[in-house]
């Protein structure tokens, strides 16, 4: 009896130890970031991360948000934050919209090669942007979309993942509901907007969270297509600052770290606030 209890407790301890170690592994770099943003750049350069907390948060935040570098003077932190939001939101909505439409066509219309079409879409999972980056760049460049939001977003939004999730979801919606809507005189467009979108709202929310974070963190493609400073996103802009670290001024560690911290925040906030939607969307089957 007691040994049984002891063993149980031991395994709990081990479980927790593993979980705590894992959490620390994740959180310590973030804490270091927070610490370093509070120190003057000189100290950071001399000692690196330490345990002391300085008083530089406000000045660093101001520099990160409002100071620009380069020639144009427009790529301030606020500007980059806005660009990141435009990319994240455009990317997420674009993927959801395209994915929903494709899934709608595949599930609800009697197309001759619907399943073939689906599998072709599915195989594009094997061709992420990184694989087709040169031709994609060529196309965007010829269309004159370099340094535009369209150029930033459109090549990224074709989404096999979203199509797949929405297809599975639509297939779980009872057939009778579709039939009742047909009898009620809802044509394809009305059905899509009146029935399908409201029914899919938790799914849309879940997809939005995933896709927003994914879009927000895009690095390679924005680096390729944006050369004008006014178009930089946060993730790309941080890189720009760290490149300047190799110059001969005192590197702006505080500012760069603060920008990194700012870049982390929106995805974290979105996940925290929409967590319940997220779980619902992926698990709920109340249709």
């Amino acid at each position, binding site marked *: 009896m007691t040994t049984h209890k002891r063993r149980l407790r031991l395994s709990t301890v081990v479980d927790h130890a593993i979980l705590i170690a894992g959490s620390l592994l994740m959180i310590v770099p973030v804490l270091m970031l927070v610490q370093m943003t509070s120190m003057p750049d000189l100290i950071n350069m001399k000692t690196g991360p330490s345990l002391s907390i300085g008083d530089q948060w406000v000045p660093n935040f101001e520099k990160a948000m409002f100071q620009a570098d380069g020639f144009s003077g427009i790529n301030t932190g606020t500007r980059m934050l806005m660009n990141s939001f435009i990319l994240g939101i455009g990317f997420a909505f674009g993927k959801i919209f395209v994915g929903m439409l494709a899934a709608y066509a595949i599930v609800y219309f009697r197309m001759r090669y619907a399943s073939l079409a689906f599998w072709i879409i599915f195989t594009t999972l094997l061709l992420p942007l990184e694989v087709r980056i040169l031709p994609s760049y060529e196309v965007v460049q010829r269309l004159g979309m370099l340094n535009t939001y369209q150029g930033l977003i459109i090549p990224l939004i074709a989404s096999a993942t979203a199509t797949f999730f929405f297809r599975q979801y639509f297939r779980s919606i*009872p057939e*009778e*509901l579709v*039939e009742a809507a*047909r*009898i009620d005189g809802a044509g394809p467009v*009305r059905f899509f907007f009146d*029935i399908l979108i409201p029914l899919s709202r938790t799914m849309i929310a879940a997809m939005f969270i995933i896709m927003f974070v994914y879009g927000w963190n895009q690095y390679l493609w924005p680096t390729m297509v944006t050369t004008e400073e006014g178009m930089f996103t946060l993730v790309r802009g941080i890189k720009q600052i760290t490149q300047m670290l190799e110059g001969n001024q005192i590197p702006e560690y505080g500012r760069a770290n603060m920008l990194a911290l700012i870049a982390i925040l929106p995805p974290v906030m979105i996940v925290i606030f929409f967590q319940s939607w997220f779980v619902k969307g992926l698990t709920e089957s*109340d249709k």
Partner: protein
Amino acid sequence: MSHVTLTALRKVYPNGFEAVKPASYTITPGEFVVLVGPSGCGKSTMLRMIAGLEDISDGTLEIAGRVVNTLDPADRDIAMVFQNYALYPHMTVRKNIGYGLQNRKIPKDVIAAKVAEASALLNLDDYLDRKPSQLSGGQRQRVAMGRAIVRDPALFLFDEPLSNLDAKLRNQMRIEIKALQRRLGVTSIYVTHDQVEAMTMADRIIVMNAGRIEQIGTPAEIYHTPATTFVASFMGAPPMNLLDGQIAGGAARVGDHTVMTDAPAAPGPVTVGIRPEDIVADPNGPLTLDIAIVEELGAHRLLHGTLAGQQLSVHVGKDSPATTGPFRAALKPGAVSLFDAGTGERL
């Protein structure tokens, strides 16, 4: 004038399966027709062809004087109630009922008035602002009915609307639906596999089996003069007793027992059909049954036993003596139905 006319209506599914063999019948205005048959016999398929949810393979379908074969469900002037209600989960009861009207570009105030009228008729006034998930099964069923009646369709279609309800509610809704249909006078086709529902609700019953119509008739006709052994054994609980018999010398016999003296059939083997309640206890009766089991059902009893070695059931009142062992009995006049031993057709 006929209201719904099917002419050799047939359904072959893409995989080559003939779910409905060519079927022809007409339904008069205001009639309540029940399609009944065992699972998989093609009832739903027939109904869905009429609704326009399933393509018609062959034949013509007329509703209210129009051939509607190729029309969309929305243009056929029909309304349908589904087994699982098929309510829109994200809309309130009010919107659920009004959605069909809204799609037909009917002015808002007219919709409101019609929804109010339907909800009053169905006692849904207290629930108009609830979502379907906040309703009981019976209430959901009524919302589905409301969605059907607001549109004043030429034809109601029901596909097993009560089979998700418990027995008590089912009885109650059965009466409600029937009363509503009477009151509105709308022609209706009602699919069920429950023969009690068929008997109690129908003006006329269509019995189907394996894609084929076995018999069309009033409940009394179906019950008393079944056209085939299938109908005889499908309708009634317990079903009609079907015994192997012989015609000899103008009399129908089961084993040594003469069950009918002036049989209108040629000599040879026949199937003898006798309803359980047409066998009555009679100490001087011509038949001697051997009863093995007595089922006590309160108002009456069911006796299960054999006649000349063949299984049969007897339905007797609670006052009738009932013990296992030999049981002397007589038949009510006209109790015996004769069927062809090969084809099962009524003779």
